């Protein structure tokens, strides 16, 4: 009988902390994306003149996010009946945006970033009785940071 109380408690804890973490993360993402909005981000290899380029370098950013207990339970339920798992959609979106923002923070003030590639990887891990009880979404964003030559005024 105490099992159901534990389950509901963890569910509540997961819901409260997880929702707060998600909301805070989205707010923080919007703020940090605003700071880098002036730098063009392209998934193609264009937007610059070959003669103007001073320096290029590979930059990458990655993050590992985990869902909370509430979201994992909701996802298993939806998984059973079929449908959109919006709780995980938010998680994936957050992970990719965070990876892109971190990629920018590692690049030292580029003029533009080209050939952006995004990769997501799910880590199912865990030791002990319940195998695969740790779920983590790893998002990787990488591209080429371009610094243009300073134009003589």
């Amino acid at each position, binding site marked *: 009988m105490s099992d159901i109380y534990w389950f509901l408690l*963890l569910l509540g*804890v*997961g819901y409260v*902390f*997880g929702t707060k*973490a*998600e909301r805070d*993360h989205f707010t923080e993402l919007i703020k940090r994306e605003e700071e880098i909005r002036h730098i063009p981000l392209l998934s193609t*290899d264009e937007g*610059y003149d*070959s*003669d*103007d*380029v*001073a*320096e*290029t*370098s*590979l930059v*990458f950013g*990655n*993050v*590992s*996010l*985990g*869902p*909370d*207990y509430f*979201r*994992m339970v909701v996802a298993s339920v939806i998984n059973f009946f079929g449908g959109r798992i919006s709780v995980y959609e938010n998680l994936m979106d957050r992970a990719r945006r*965070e990876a892109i923002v971190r990629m920018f923070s590692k690049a030292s003030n580029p003029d533009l970033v*080209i*050939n952006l*590639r995004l*990769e997501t*990887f799910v*880590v*199912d*891990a*865990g*030791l002990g009785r319940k*195998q*695969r*009880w*740790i*779920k*983590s979404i*790893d998002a*990787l964003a*990488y*591209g*080429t940071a*371009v610094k243009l030559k300073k134009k003589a005024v």
Partner: protein
Amino acid sequence: MYKEMILTNIATVPGRQIDAHFGLVTGSTVRSKHFGRDFMASVKNFFGGELKGYTELLEESREEAIDRMVTAARSVGANAILNVRFSTSSVAQGAAEIYVYGTAVRLA
């Protein structure tokens, strides 16, 4: 720039001429976390949020894989690697293999 080697994930280095091609160079590493990180991650999984242990693990793995690729390129006499691509795969429970590959060239 990575230890005096230019890396790009496009097919050229803009503004530079390619003198010689040396073919494919690769770097890979397989890493897993120790039990402490596993335990903290599982606790964090109840609350949600970033799993810093895993983030650091994968970031360090990627830097090490790039390091190995750069070493391989340097050993054939290249000074740049083009078209760098990453590939991540799960090899065992909680262990990820990071594989990075590119084309080694010498720039004029």
